[in-house]
């Protein structure tokens, strides 16, 4: 398989200092990278995945401290490879307590553009990749009766806006998929948290206009982990989006399409 980068920490797990293990898919930049750092800070052993090897290198090299961080270059659309990468990482981390699916793309789509390739890429990365990874984690957690799954959706999943139909579709579908997982796993002591970020200051926002309440990816990472720790089913990040979306969800379509939201 591809090469693994590691920060070289080899401390063994002790019963009273358990060092839970987490996998972050989509970890090379933005929210995912911030999550890796925050998890390491909280004492997790972390496995990090994304395509850009140099970015992963940088991330791993920047994390010093007590816990092990491992990164594997991986493209989530390489579905066939997922089971092997999954088992290998779980093995290297010595278990799995938490998985976060953060991989996502949002290409620019013009108002008269209907580019199937862009749509397909989004479905493949934002949705199918999530199923590829989270199905494996869900099965393992169901069998071992513990674990936490976090999916990074978006406020964009709550409504279908004009802008980028496929993006809204994938985030809406992801939220539904996560709800189903939550219901399936409720009896197995597995926590499933859907995160719906508003505007987070990452590369994804480059060129996006009219943003507000923008928070840093570091702050977002803290809020995301806190939400899961508090066993939230759905959490808007930052929280004020909850009230905005509550209203937006109930605006009738004929009005919604006239608003520039």
């Amino acid at each position, binding site marked *: 398989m591809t090469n693994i980068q590691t920060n070289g920490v080899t401390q063994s797990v002790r019963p*009273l200092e358990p060092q839970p293990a987490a996998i972050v898919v989509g970890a090379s930049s933005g929210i995912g990278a911030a999550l890796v750092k925050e998890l390491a800070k909280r004492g997790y052993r972390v496995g990090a995945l994304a395509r850009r090897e140099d970015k992963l290198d940088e991330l791993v090299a920047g994390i010093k401290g007590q816990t092990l961080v491992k990164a594997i270059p991986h493209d989530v659309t390489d579905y066939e490879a997922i089971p092997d990468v999954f088992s290998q990482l779980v093995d290297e981390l010595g278990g799995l307590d938490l998985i976060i699916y953060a991989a996502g793309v949002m290409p620019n789509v013009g108002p008269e553009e209907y580019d199937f390739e862009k749509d397909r890429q989004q479905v493949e990365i934002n949705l199918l990749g999530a199923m590829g990874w989270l199905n494996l984690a869900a099965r393992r957690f169901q069998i071992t009766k513990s674990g936490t799954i976090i999916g990074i959706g978006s406020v964009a999943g709550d409504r279908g806006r004009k802008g980028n139909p496929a993006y809204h579709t994938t985030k809406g579908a992801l939220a539904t998929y996560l709800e189903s997982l939550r219901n399936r796993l409720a009896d197995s002591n597995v926590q499933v948290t859907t995160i719906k970020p508003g505007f987070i200051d990452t590369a994804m926002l480059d060129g996006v206009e009219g943003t507000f309440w923008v928070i840093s990816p570091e702050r977002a990472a803290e809020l995301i982990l806190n939400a899961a720790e508090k066993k939230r089913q759905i959490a808007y990040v930052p929280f004020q989006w909850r009230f905005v979306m509550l209203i937006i969800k109930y605006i009738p379509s004929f009005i919604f399409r006239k608003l520039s939201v």
Partner: protein
Amino acid sequence: MPTLKPELPDDHLEYVEAWGRASGSVAHVFRPSTIDELKKNFKLAQETGRTIGFRGGGNSYGDAFGNRENMVLDLSRLNRITDWNPETGIIKVEPGVTVEQLWRYVLADGWWPPVVTGTAKTTVGGCAAMNTHGKNGFVMGTFGDHITEFEMLMANGRKKVCNREKNSELFHAAIGGFGMFGCFTSLTMQLKKIYSGHLEVEGCSRPNLASAMSWFDENRDGADYLVGWLDSTAKGSGFGRGEMHKARYLQPGEDPAPARTLSLQAQAIPDSIMGIIPKSSMWFYMGFFFNNFGMKMVNTGKYVAARMLTGEKGKKYQQPHAAYHFLLDYVPGWKWGYGRGGLIQYQTFFPKKTAEDAFAALLKLNQERRMPNYLTVVKRHKPSDFLVSYSPDGYSMAMDFRITRHNREAVSRMARAMDEIVVKHHGQFYFAKDSTLRPDIAQQTMGTEKVAEVIRLKKKYDSKFFFQTDLWNRVFAPLAKK
């Protein structure tokens, strides 16, 4: 770059929890019921690049039978008694036979296991692997002292017969070798002849640590069992005070009706041990006492009651063997009283000379940090000649600590401080109870030579380190790498 391991199906994944419930890990758990199946499990592990750890009854307090992300072979279904001679008291069993199965099988013939643990849920294999002790360590030694021979399935799939003459190096390493050399598949033991199903028990109280400790050697002549329970919460002049129990087997003729007391019915314990509370819900009521304040009440109350009932001079009464040894087994789920976080035990062994000072320092430290241990048990031991021996000619003290979501770090820190006391007083640790030991402290307490010898024999009998557990990986793997 590590090579990819071939798939091992995930349908055997299980969370393997420490007996104390404070920790655990996920592993592929298999439960062979024949030696053939056991061999197949070995092969499967080898084909899929996994290591193997053994689980007997799962009564070790910490991580001794866990094997994170690898294979755990639960041997409790290998539980046949294959030979029994009521004339000589020699019994041959498979490793998953429990101490309970054992005593119930031989009692009517007038025999009893020479060394039993505080719970009868332990297996013969698990007791051999840890070389357990009872309340009679000072006279009967350890479990392994009564094993005359065993068969072991080695990493290469071959069987080795070991006794004190044949393969004696492996015999002395595997007993006490915490499952790191191979799998016991059959064990032969010499049991102890008894002439009554009752023991004569004598309880008394001792007002402070010095007198509690001297009680052991004052009473060892003529005693078959000695155990002391200390009030860990007492301060000032009553510091280290305790309730002591000695017991002895009845001699031939002392029991007027041995056939009756040697029956299983006579060993049964009433269903409600406190009169009104059904024992099945005891743990619920115990929950109220399993906090620092409640424990102070229980410890003080127990001492005062002992003093009133038995006084310093002592009072004699007769008790069935099972009730004397396994009382806690008759309170189903008592450990649940400790709450969701579970408990750990910190047990240390000291030579006669340093024991009292060490115990005083440890108890004082617990009190200073406001982390009293909930149950403090003192026993007397003699040395053993097995490789991984933990008992000197001296005393052991076992302390139970409740673990909560918030105190893990504080307990770890206190364990570090206790380790220093142990090293300073030439103490030893016992892996069956351990959850906190670190490689450097293991090296200091066992001695560099002993550690090197364990690793040398590990390499000799299991060169590929096929047998591993979380305990091994925590304490020995870092030392083996050096």
